[in-house]
């Protein structure tokens, strides 16, 4: 009998072209996503070496990181951004790479459109020059972010060289309380294991609370794996996965679909398979979460207080105090009731239709607080259209919100969507680093539901207060 292995091993080993002794594995890549920011230097490298793209159709391109979220039909105003988007278009044309540009009905954030189009499928190896490539792990893929040198390797050879990560399993059993979402699970895990707790590892999420998540929730959770330091995170595919994928644009059809389902059903971790590290949490212990510091591990339940610095070691305390000073908070502060200025709903973490639905259903019949500027940014054109068709746009407008056009937007503030210095933003994105949302911006990460409650009240608020 063969040894029991994890889902991660099965996919990794099945894609290893060659293992170098005492060195990395040569890993074959099934799907490669590219965008305008981390690809130009890779194409330049190819050119210098006189190489062509090995498999143009295994790569898919879309501009997302630095595009405007208003007036996308006009020429991009910022010359540098325009240049990057133009370069992406030219490179894709030269090398025959499928590209969904601005104004294409499939354009959007790379990690939103891949799954939406059915390009992301169980059992694949997937990479992109963006750390949140971990999102695709929700489908039972080995998916992770790479640097530009590696983008060049994939373009040129369809392979990269990577040391095989260790394996970690995080189990969450039980039933989530009302008002607790996948984003809260993610922020909870990182607050427990820290932003370096996953370093060197690939996470498999399991347990009944995970199985109960929708595909969109699973994507939110896997997306944030990188914030614990892990290379990526994955979830074994099941009926939920198959139902999501069926009939999507690039999903297999007819007999091929049947064959694929048969293959995908085998993608599971064997009983007794070895993990280097295991954690287990209870769904009931998780509250709606919010962060108060400058890394995603600095989070707590929304009803909580900022932990005291006294319990930390000296070197930790220096960093902790620096972080609170940046945020304008003191340790021991109660979070609820603190006034905020901006609300951002969007990004590859929470910019999918379910997120907009959750936000819209919450604010329905209520009004945006006067002190709040809100940016609601769909993750893709398809999400934008669906939001209109489902009547979400009308709900948003009635409550005083507007819907922008798809892109990464204030998640990394490369375009004009920057939170002004010193202002507080409750954001559904994934990073609260200093200056992430604009120089001096103060980010509080939370779920779309918490963001909705904050947008209505103008301050940090527990969404459960509004439940009957």
């Amino acid at each position, binding site marked *: 009998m063969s040894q029991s292995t994890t889902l991660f091993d099965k996919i990794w080993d099945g894609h290893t*072209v*060659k293992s*170098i002794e*005492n*060195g*990395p594995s*040569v890993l*074959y890549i099934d799907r490669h996503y590219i965008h305008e*920011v*981390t690809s*130009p*230097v890779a194409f*330049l*490298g190819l050119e*210098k070496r006189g*190489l062509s793209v090995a498999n143009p159709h295994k790569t898919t391109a879309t501009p997302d*990181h*630095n595009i405007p979220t208003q007036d996308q039909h006009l020429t991009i105003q*910022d010359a*540098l*951004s325009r240049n*990057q988007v133009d*370069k992406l278009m030219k490179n894709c044309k030269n090398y025959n790479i499928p590209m969904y540009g601005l104004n294409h009905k499939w354009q959007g954030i790379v990690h939103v459109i891949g799954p939406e189009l059915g390009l992301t499928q169980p059992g694949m190896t997937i990479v992109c*020059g*963006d*750390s949140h490539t971990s999102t695709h792990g929700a489908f039972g893929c080995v998916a992770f*972010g*790479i*640097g*530009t*040198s*590696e983008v060049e*390797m994939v373009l*040129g*050879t*369809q*392979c*990269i*060289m990577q*040391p095989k990560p260790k394996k970690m399993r995080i189990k969450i059993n039980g039933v989530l309380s009302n008002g607790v979402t996948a984003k809260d699970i993610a922020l909870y895990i990182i607050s427990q294991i820290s*932003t*370096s707790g996953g*370093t*060197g590892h690939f996470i498999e999420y399991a347990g009944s609370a995970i199985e109960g998540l929708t595909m969109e929730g699973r994507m939110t959770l896997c997306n944030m794996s990188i914030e614990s*330091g892990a*290379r990526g995170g994955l979830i074994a595919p099941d009926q939920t996965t198959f139902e999501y994928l069926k009939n999507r644009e690039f999903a297999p059809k007819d007999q091929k679909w049947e064959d694929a389902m048969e293959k995908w059903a085998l993608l599971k971790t064997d009983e007794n398979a070895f993990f280097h590290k295991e954690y287990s949490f209870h769904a009931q212990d998780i509250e709606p979460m919010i962060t108060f510091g400058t*890394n995603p591990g600095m989070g707590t339940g929304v009803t909580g207080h900022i932990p005291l610095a006294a319990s930390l070691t000296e*070197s*930790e305390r*220096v960093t902790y105090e620096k972080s609170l000073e940046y945020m304008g908070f003191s340790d021991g502060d109660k979070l609820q009731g603190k006034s905020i200025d901006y609300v951002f709903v969007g990004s590859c973490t929470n910019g999918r239709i379910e997120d907009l639905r959750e936000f819209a259903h919450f604010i329905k019949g209520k009004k945006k607080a006067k002190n709040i500027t809100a940016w609601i940014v769909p993750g893709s054109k398809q999400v934008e259209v669906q939001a209109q068709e489902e009547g979400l746009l009308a709900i948003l407008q009635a409550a005083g919100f507007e819907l922008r056009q798809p892109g990464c937007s204030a998640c*990394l*503030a*490369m375009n004009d969507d920057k939170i002004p210095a010193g202002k507080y933003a409750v954001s559904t994105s994934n*990073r609260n*680093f*200093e*200056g*992430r949302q604009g*120089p*001096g911006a103060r980010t509080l990460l939370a779920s779309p539901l918490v963001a909705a409650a904050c947008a209505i009240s103008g301050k940090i608020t527990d969404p459960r207060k509004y439940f009957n």
Partner: protein
Amino acid sequence: MPIEKFIKIQSSAVPVQIENVDTDQIIPARFLKAVERKGFGDNLFRDWRYDKSNNPISDFPLNDIKYSGQILIGGKNFGSGSSREHAAWALYDYGFKVVVSSFFADIFKGNALNNGLLPVQVTSDELSEIFEAIDTDTQATFSVDLVQQTFTIDASDKIIDFEINPYKKECLLQGYDDIDYLLSLKKEIAVFESKE
């Protein structure tokens, strides 16, 4: 592009004693709009180095004339966050050849190695000793020998052994990059593809 060969250096160091230095701090996103790999060093640690009016913040170590050298000493969990290779380019372009920390984020480590920037991981006690050595003498020198895999605090002759993947070590010593190697595997890759 082949990378510069790394063998040995002896240099003073710049201490950035902050934990969880993420790549958004190393190079903020608004400086990622270039389409060529040039000039990123100017914006290394931009928002820690310059204030809102673009004046240098004098007590940030990179601006402090007390400190100089090709070695950067960072706090625990260096390079977390975004996968942007620009972070490694910015450090290298600024003139750093070695980054020392008690813990590196995975993607950053890979990106550094792919660009001839050597990440040296030490224990947290050793890291404190290194910071102390700089505290005592801001121009204290350190010797980094890749062949021997040693990092030496010259003042005390304390030798710290560090780990590096043997394959990556060879690449750095020879100035090879991974793509050269992958190109040499064309046949194996084709065989793999035909089996799919």
